[in-house]
Each structure stands twice: as structure tokens, then as C-alpha cells.
């Protein structure tokens, strides 16, 4: 009798251990949300990043393998604000049982003029800028949103997720301070940022830059001749010293503008997510972008 009780106790404890060790499966549709999920979830989550570094999220299309990942995930993370136009289709096709969390939809958006023919998320000729992660404040908001979602899925891990989130938030605060100090090296009247596509509005708002995007909010938008001509005029009249390319784009139009306007090539920025090497982390990506911008425009 005693032996069978002991066996049962061992079995229950083992089962409990197995259950406790089972990680929360997360499918992430952006390199940004992949980092947040890993940082906050730590060893208690198993994150599959479906959109890899260097992949353009504007033109990404899920593969059959991606659908399988979504299907077996307890949580699907997306950046939201109409960045992932395929989301509804993805949810339906995969028949996912897990929660879909569009992180960016939980906080306010900046809006910009819609390009000709742009309909996704367009209201009164305005579209939401989906590139919210270029504001560190938004990253902090996102980290808290993911933390709360993970606690909802696994309430027993509340302390663990909270501690991880606090450590990540402290790193983001330090990054924010570094950016402020670096940007302060650049006179406010020189904070004019011309980039390949319109992805830096949040950054501009936080640090006093006026943004001129050659293309629209998406990398798939083609600039009209008039827009290119206007940008060249702006560069000349505003005495913009340099313009910037982006890591996952064809810089043909930007190069032509550089040639016409006389502005220098300021360097390559990461606009749509994390990259490789130094830019493989959010901290590294932001430091790379800020350093490239400030040093070129000084």
C-alpha cells in the first residue's frame, strides 16, 4: 500500500515537472516581437520567428511551414498597425487556436498621407505608420503588453516574466539615455532625415527630426516623378547634408536622388526590423541607426 502511494506521488511529481517544463509556443511575425518574446519569456517560451532578419515584412508571404507553426502556437505575435496585411488569411488558413496579439494596436499611432492606391488601413487619405519600434517608448509599452499576455497564459510564471520584463525595460531606459546624448551632438536645425521609405516618423517625433521618405509607408510604394523632384528640391533648399539607404531595399532611386541633389550617402539604416551582426539586437540596431544618422548629418 505504502509502495503504491509512493509510486503515485512520484508519478504526480514527475508529471507536474514535465508540465512545468513545457514551454509556451509562440510564433512571431516580426524580428522585433521575436526579441521581445525571448527577452520577456526567457526559458519559459519557445519562440519561432517566421519573419527572419533581413526579410522585408511589407512583402512577406507566409509559407505552408509557417502555417503549421502558427497552428501549433499558443500565441501569435505581430507588430500590427496594418503591417501584416495577410493576418486574417493566415489565421483562417492555419486554423490557429492560440491568441493573436497585434502588439502595436495597443498604443497610439502616428499617421501619414496615404500613397496613391494605398488602401490598407487608410482613413480620410491617412494611413497608420506601422514602424512603431523606432520609438524606444513604444518598445517599452510593447514589452509590458507581451509580459501581461504571457502572464495571462501562464499565471504561475508571473514573477519570472515580471523580473525578465523589468531587466529588459532597464536596458531600454539605458538605450534611451544613450540616444538622447548622441542625438544632442546634432544641432536641431540639422535634424532633417531623408530615407528610402517613410519608416522613421516615430523616431523623428521623439528626437526632433523632420522626416522625408522617398517612397511611402511601404517599401512596395513607388515614388512618382513629382515626388522625386520635390525631394530633390527639399534637399537643396533645406541644405540636407546626407540621405540614407535602407538595409533591405534596392537603393536605385535613392542613388539617383543623391546624384541630382548633391547630397552625400549617409549610410544604411535598419527600418523594417532587426538585421545581422551589430544590428541583430534591438539595442544594436538602434545604436547603429542613430550613430549613422548623427555622424553623417553633423
Amino acid at each position, binding site marked *: 500500500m505504502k509502495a503504491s502511494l509512493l509510486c503515485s506521488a512520484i508519478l504526480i511529481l514527475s508529471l507536474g515537472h514535465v508540465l512545468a517544463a513545457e514551454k509556451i509556443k509562440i510564433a512571431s511575425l516580426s524580428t522585433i516581437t521575436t526579441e521581445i518574446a525571448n527577452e520577456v519569456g526567457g526559458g519559459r517560451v519557445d519562440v519561432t520567428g517566421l519573419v527572419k532578419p533581413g526579410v522585408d515584412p511589407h512583402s512577406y508571404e507566409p509559407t505552408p511551414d509557417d502555417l503549421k507553426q502558427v497552428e501549433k502556437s499558443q500565441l501569435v505575435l505581430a507588430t500590427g498597425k496594418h503591417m501584416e496585411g495577410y493576418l486574417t488569411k493566415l489565421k483562417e488558413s492555419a486554423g490557429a487556436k492560440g491568441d493573436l496579439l497585434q502588439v502595436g494596436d495597443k498604443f497610439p499611432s502616428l499617421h501619414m498621407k496615404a500613397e496613391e492606391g494605398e488602401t490598407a488601413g487608410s482613413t480620410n487619405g491617412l494611413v497608420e505608420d506601422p514602424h512603431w519600434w523606432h520609438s524606444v517608448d513604444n518598445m517599452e509599452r510593447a514589452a509590458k503588453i507581451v509580459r501581461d499576455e504571457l502572464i495571462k497564459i501562464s499565471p504561475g510564471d508571473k514573477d519570472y516574466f515580471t523580473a525578465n520584463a523589468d531587466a529588459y525595460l532597464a536596458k531600454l531606459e539605458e538605450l534611451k539615455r544613450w540616444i*538622447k546624448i548622441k542625438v*544632442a*551632438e546634432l*544641432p*536641431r536645425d540639422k535634424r532633417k532625415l531623408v530615407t528610402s521609405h517613410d519608416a522613421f516618423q516615430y523616431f523623428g517625433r521623439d528626437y*526632433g527630426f523632420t522626416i522625408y521618405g522617398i517612397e511611402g509607408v511601404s517599401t512596395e510604394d513607388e515614388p512618382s516623378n513629382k515626388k522625386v523632384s520635390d525631394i530633390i528640391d527639399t534637399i537643396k533648399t533645406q541644405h540636407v547634408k546626407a540621405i540614407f539607404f535602407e538595409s533591405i531595399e534596392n537603393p536605385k532611386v535613392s542613388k539617383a536622388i543623391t546624384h541630382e541633389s548633391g547630397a552625400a550617402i549617409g549610410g544604411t539604416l535598419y527600418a523594417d526590423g532587426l538585421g545581422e551582426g551589430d544590428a541583430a539586437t534591438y539595442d544594436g540596431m538602434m545604436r547603429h541607426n542613430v550613430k549613422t544618422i548623427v555622424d553623417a548629418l553633423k
Partner: protein
Amino acid sequence: MRGSPLIGTAIILALLGLMLIPLRRLTTAQAVSSAPATIVEPSAKATPVHLELESSHAPFSYEISHLGKVIWKGDAMDKDVQSDVAMEFPQEGVDLRIAVSWPDDASREAVKLAVTENDSIVEKTLWGEKKIDDVLTFP
């Protein structure tokens, strides 16, 4: 031994002619060196600005930078220090980096920076423990 006065005059004239070459070079070089207006421009745009730093604890060390360059620094024995500097102050405003440190016995402290430019005063405060290194935007 005396030479002809005609030859002497010719030699003097030739020497005077030779002296004209370096003179011309000097005057030409002067004109070129004054050309780049950008070197002079920043100081021409600079206006007098009064800075006043008030700390909740003394002594303290401070360093104020503008556009990556230190414009005022020192060690203060009193809680209040002030200085006049000349700096550009465009309409868009200026970002000042403030680095302050207090001795180890200081707890959570605050420092207020007051910037007076063109009779207009703007004050901003930062808080920190033992040290602060942050940026304030004026006005």
C-alpha cells in the same frame, strides 16, 4: 671702385621688383584664407547665454556640453553656481547635456539648470542617485 650710378639705380630697381613677388603672394594668400565663411559663422551667430545650476546637495561636480563640446564645467562647493557663455541659440532650440556627480554620502538628489537667453528664463530639473548624465532641451 665706384660703379656707374646708372647700374646702381638699375640694381635697386631690380631688387624692388623682386620684393613685389612675395608681397603679391602674401596679399593673394590673405584673400584666400579669409574666404571660408563657415569658420567664422558659428561665432557670429553666438549669443550671450546665462547658465545657473542649483543642486540639492553640495559639493558637486558638473559638466555642461553643447553639440558634443564642453561649454562649462567645474567643482562647486556651494549649491548654486552660475556662468555666462556664448553659444548659438537657434529658434529650434538647443539640447544641453548635463553631467553632475555628488559625493558618496549623497542620496537621491536633484539639479536645476536655468538658461537665460534674450531676457527669457527657462528652468528644467533632473533627478538622480550619486550622478546624472542626461540631456535637457531649451527652451
